[in-house]
């Protein structure tokens, strides 16, 4: 039986259980509609242009179930994930197997409004607000429909107007299972007018069997508001990550994201951005590092529907062994979106002949007064740089590591959340075997003050 049939059967039989947490008829209807859409599309194959290099049909061979029980977040996992904070005050919101673990949550401030998406629906959040996010998909991403149909829970976060929320907000998306299952959370984040926030989503998996983590993060950035979103996916084994991030930007607002994917088995990030007003600014930065057995696909879509907006995309990847990565950068500039500035860059360093990168800039421009540039490169390490370092006594391996570190450091420096930035630097230094060098930076600065 194919996965699609299984899901059909499962969902129809368990749909009532899934829906029992909602008394809101609209939402049950919303789920049903999305289930129909999903069943119609099925699991994407390479024939779907948006999944050309990301064959998902292997999902059919995994005997998934759905999990509705509320698992406990183990303290060990929570501690290890959050150790980089060094105790600095943060809001911590754990979602495990698709459910919010309220007991382990830390709310560092009363200014932030956090509830579950379920109670938000019950309290009058309209399905239209959510349905609107469908526009990003145009029938090309069945996973969003699957998420909308079968999410178990999720967060509804509001940053109230005129609030500069300086403390980081950390959402842990955790998974733990002994049997294969599909986990879906539906999260909605709203920044009201004149506000700012820094949100970091950390994926963590302690499952011993395959888990499909099919998540949505639906974000609305209000007028004059600024959001930094960091996504951290490191060393994820057994997790098939389908991370759907949908962002609507109001007038004069900004969205900066940093997507960090290191040595993970299977990650598909869908980053979808729409400018709903003028003078918006978007920066999508990313770093990925793949080795044999790793796959990452960053699929970005930026819809310039309004004039005077800026988007800047910069993804850098290091590919080793038989690692494979895909980058797609779709940019639509509508006829009315004059004075659009759109930049896109995807650079890759291949460390082996067997590593694979598919990079596809896709620009569709219907306005005539715009500036759009894109560039994609895939190459090997610069031999002159390598020789220069080696000529000073640096070993081949260290020289290589230094250059790889330098290749991604520009993107790391863009992360504004200090503790996270240092953590990622350290993580990369470990992966590149440069720990002693990373610590040199901080010591140098300490000595300078003395």
């Amino acid at each position, binding site marked *: 039986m194919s996965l699609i049939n299984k899901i059909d059967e499962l969902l129809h039989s368990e749909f009532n259980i899934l829906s029992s947490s909602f008394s809101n008829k609209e939402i049950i209807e919303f789920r049903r509609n999305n289930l129909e859409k999903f069943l119609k599309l099925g699991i994407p194959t390479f024939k779907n242009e948006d999944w050309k290099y990301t064959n998902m049909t292997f999902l059919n061979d995994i005997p998934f179930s759905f999990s509705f029980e509320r698992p406990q977040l183990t303290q060990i996992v929570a501690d290890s994930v959050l150790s980089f904070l060094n105790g600095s005050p943060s809001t911590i919101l754990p979602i495990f197997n698709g459910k919010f673990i309220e007991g382990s949550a830390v709310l560092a401030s009363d200014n932030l409004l956090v509830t579950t998406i379920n109670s938000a629906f019950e309290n009058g959040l309209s399905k239209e607000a959510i349905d609107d996010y469908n526009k990003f998909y145009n029938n090309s991403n069945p996973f969003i429909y699957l998420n909308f149909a079968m999410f178990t829970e999720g967060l509804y976060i509001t940053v109230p107007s005129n609030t500069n929320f300086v403390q980081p907000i950390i959402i842990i998306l955790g998974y733990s299972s002994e049997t294969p299952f599909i986990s879906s959370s539906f999260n909605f984040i709203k920044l009201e007018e004149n506000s700012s926030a820094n949100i970091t989503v950390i994926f963590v998996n302690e499952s011993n069997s395959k888990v499909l983590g099919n998540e949505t993060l639906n974000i609305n950035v209000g007028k004059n508001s600024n959001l930094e979103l960091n996504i951290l996916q490191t060393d994820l084994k057994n997790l098939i990550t389908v991370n759907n991030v949908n962002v609507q930007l109001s007038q004069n607002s900004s969205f900066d994201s940093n997507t960090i994917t290191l040595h993970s088995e299977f990650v598909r990030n869908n980053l979808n951005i729409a400018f709903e007003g003028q003078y918006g600014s978007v920066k999508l930065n990313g770093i990925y590092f793949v080795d044999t057995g790793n796959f990452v696909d960053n699929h970005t879509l930026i819809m310039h529907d309004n004039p005077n907006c800026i988007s800047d995309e910069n993804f850098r990847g290091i590919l080793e062994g038989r690692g494979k990565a895909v980058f797609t950068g779709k940019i639509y500039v509508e006829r009315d979106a004059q004075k659009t500035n759109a930049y896109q860059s995807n650079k890759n360093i291949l460390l082996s002949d067997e590593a694979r990168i598919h990079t596809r800039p896709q620009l569709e421009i219907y306005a005539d007064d715009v500036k759009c540039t894109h560039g994609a490169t895939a190459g090997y390490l610069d031999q002159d740089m390598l020789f220069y370092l080696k000529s000073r006594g640096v070993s*081949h391996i260290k020289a290589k590591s230094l250059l790889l570190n330098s290749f991604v450091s*520009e993107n790391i420096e863009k992360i504004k959340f200090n503790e996270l930035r240092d953590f990622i630097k350290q993580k990369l230094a470990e992966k590149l075997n440069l720990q002693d060098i990373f610590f040199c930076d901080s010591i140098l600065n300490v000595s300078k003050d003395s």
Partner: protein
Amino acid sequence: MNVLKIENLKVKVNGNLILKGLNLSVNLGEIHAIMGPNGTGKSTLANVLAGKPGYEIIDGSIEFDGKNLLEMEPEERAREGLFMAFQYPIEIPGVTNANFMKTAVNEIRKFRGLEPLDAYDFLQLMREKAQLVGLDPSFLNRNVNEGFSGGEKKRNEIFQLALLDPKLAILDETDSGLDIDAIKVVANGVNALRTENRSFLIITHYQRILNYIVPDFVHIMYDGQIVTTGDKSLAYELEAKGYDWLKNGNSNKN
């Protein structure tokens, strides 16, 4: 004692014979200058000594401190005590001078059986050497050669030389593109580093750097070979007569 002994070195680049049986001996503590017109193989010699890939050794041998240099990787040559100041120092965005040099110094120390320097000692050492070449210590936190002026890049080479403490330092056209003040700074650095345990091979097109660094020997290179050797007065003679003097075949062949 020989620190460098080159015998009958023949080297091809892209299939063309560039070095055509070159001989050179350098003793510890000596300063040798190699002068010659453009395209005569001076930089090829420097690159072959440093171990840059892309050079095909056809014949001959190079002994460095009694060991076969041609069998060593570039990093091994550096650890054994060979240093080349690049004609065109490479810019490396994202790697700070401090991190680069800390890695290099500690790898060389490890090779010599010494403990790695801790951050504090290392910083002291770097500041001291930076002063020697007139570089503001803030340059340590800047990326390697990125956005450096021509003069800063060359001073950075001498700074690295000072830190790595080699037995043999090769300066490949370090004076090219520098104004007279910058040449003086570089020359003062070299003079300060001149010891009886260190030799220099100064490759240059012009005589003027030799006004500030007084060589023990001057070699004139032409068409892939050393054709004349003398003392510092040879450099003045060459400056006065020009390279045409060589081309006309008037020099005394060795």
